């Protein structure tokens, strides 16, 4: 992609994906930016958003208005503490489902890893940074901005030749918040009551508390689906998003497909009622254990709804590096499967002038590619 900054009236959505992980960088117009989640460029381990914005010549200290952490899972927060440290004037936005002492208690209970970062350890550093940054503020003004259904997070009125923008959370719902805090409490109690050995925090499924965002710049709307999943019932997940006031009557042009294209994150109602015909669908892959997203079926389903679907990178296993013979001979009879993720990294960039909503330009970088309907991640 070229490294020219977008025009003041131009909306940009850039999705970065390193195989596992994702980050969305949004230009809201007038040189103001927002970052949603964080991942790193595998080549130099820099937070992808920070690297890209610096390359564009953006002053991240003053021009990044908000950093949204949609949920605490490893693949959405990698490097977010570094990003937040650099964006000194950015507001931190977190899911309301994390509000309460339960989550901080949960974060405190996680064991720090020796060599691998986890979402929880990153979150712990993020909280420390937030505490330092807000130390001079009165108590009432401290803490993140809490995202919950129908809450406006950022907005600006239109000004001479500059479009208005509005960023609203569509989730979590009240029910999802309660459910999430209960789950965190259960996890804490399980550890405590049974006097279980300390271990690292592990994400629970399904993810009903992630923050889904609707961004409107001028007359163009974007829906960022995070990892929100669907569950039976109408009180959480996508069912609850469909109940929000904000989404009613709005059709988005760009959709960051939820939960890496998985069926569990799919809502046909969203595609039918809240996206334009032939929307631009963008997504990142996910690969862990036997789970690879999007699967062939997922790709088929997405491509049956739009011909403009893009994936940041393929998620493939590859052979691990060869080690010395004695080590290989020892591993062989023990490990039935050995694999490493193939290194890849891609960016999908959508730019559209707010005065010309039908003229979106899609640029692809790295391993990003268009989905054709007959492949898996």
């Amino acid at each position, binding site marked *: 992609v070229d490294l020219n900054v977008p025009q003041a009236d131009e909306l940009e959505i850039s999705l970065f994906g390193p195989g596992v992980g994702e980050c969305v960088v949004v230009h809201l117009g007038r040189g103001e930016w927002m970052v949603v989640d964080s991942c790193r460029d595998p080549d130099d381990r820099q937070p992808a958003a920070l690297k890209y914005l610096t390359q564009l010549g953006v002053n991240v200290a003053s021009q990044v208005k908000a950093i949204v952490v949609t949920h605490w899972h490893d693949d959405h927060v990698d490097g977010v503490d570094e990003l937040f440290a650099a964006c000194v004037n950015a507001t931190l936005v977190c899911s309301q489902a994390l509000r309460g002492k339960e989550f901080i208690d949960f974060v405190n209970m996680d*064991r*720090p890893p020796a*060599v691998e970062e986890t979402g929880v350890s990153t979150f712990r550093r993020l909280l420390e940074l937030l505490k330092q940054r807000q130390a001079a503020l009165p108590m009432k003004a401290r803490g993140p901005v809490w995202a919950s259904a129908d809450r406006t997070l950022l907005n600006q009125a239109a000004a001479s030749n500059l479009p208005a923008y509005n960023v609203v959370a569509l989730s979590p719902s009240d029910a999802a918040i309660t459910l999430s805090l209960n789950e965190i409490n259960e996890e804490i109690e399980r550890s405590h009551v049974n*006097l279980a*050995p*300390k271990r690292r925090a592990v994400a629970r499924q399904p993810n009903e508390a992630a923050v889904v965002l609707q961004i409107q710049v001028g007359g163009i709307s974007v829906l960022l689906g995070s990892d929100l999943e669907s569950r039976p019932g109408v009180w959480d997940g996508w069912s609850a998003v469909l109940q929000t006031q904000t989404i009613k009557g709005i059709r988005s042009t760009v959709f960051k497909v939820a939960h890496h294209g998985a069926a569990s994150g799919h809502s046909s109602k969203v595609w039918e009622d809240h996206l334009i015909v032939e929307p631009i669908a963008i997504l990142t892959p996910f690969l862990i254990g036997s789970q690879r997203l999007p699967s062939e079926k997922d790709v088929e389903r997405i491509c049956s709804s739009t011909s403009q679907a893009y994936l940041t990178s393929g998620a493939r296993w590859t052979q691990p590096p060869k080690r*010395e013979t004695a080590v290989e001979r020892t591993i062989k009879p023990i490990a039935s499967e050995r*694999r490493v993720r193939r290194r890849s990294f891609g960016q999908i960039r959508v730019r559209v002038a707010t005065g010309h909503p039908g003229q979106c330009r899609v640029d692809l970088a790295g391993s990003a590619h268009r989905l054709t309907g007959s492949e898996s991640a």
Partner: protein
Amino acid sequence: MSRSQLLEVLDDPHDLSLGIDPDGPNPNNTSSARRFTALPPSPYPESGPASDAMGLGQTMLLGPTAPTAILQDHPVPIKALDARSAVFSAPMEILRVLQKWEGTVQDINGTEFTARFSDLTNPENPPEFMTMPVEEVPTPDRELLAPGAVFYWVIGYRERRDGHRERASSIRFQRLPAWTASARTEAKENAHRLAQELGWT
């Protein structure tokens, strides 16, 4: 080498391969060779796994010169060790470490489990995912096998003083102490304090 590092190898009483008798001292053993015994396992320090990680590519002494093993037939608590003089000689056996990973259990599927392995020997290597039988986990550690549990896998050569050597593999789960009521109370208070400082109420 720290005490915890050595214990990581020595604290499995069922691992005969490291020269430790699982049944404790054998009064009928009339061998003239002096046998060493590991100290009883103690909880790992609270400083986190980084401090538990064995040095890379190093040689571990598994004989009586190691600071936590002494030449006698009965395990002796560390405090007692400090108070008495121990007789040291050349190590009986060493483990030459060729490869060490830190693993985190991802999921368990019946008789197998999958883990993510971070290469501690060559940290620039990408994380590796391996599936292996649960039976590879030492029996005393199986109760620790759960998603999120951290363990270490060491592969190397066990070399004896007489020149004999053989390949060795050791999987050990991190035995962080369980949450106690007082530790939980303290953690809760810390969380409460941080929540207040952040206006997180």
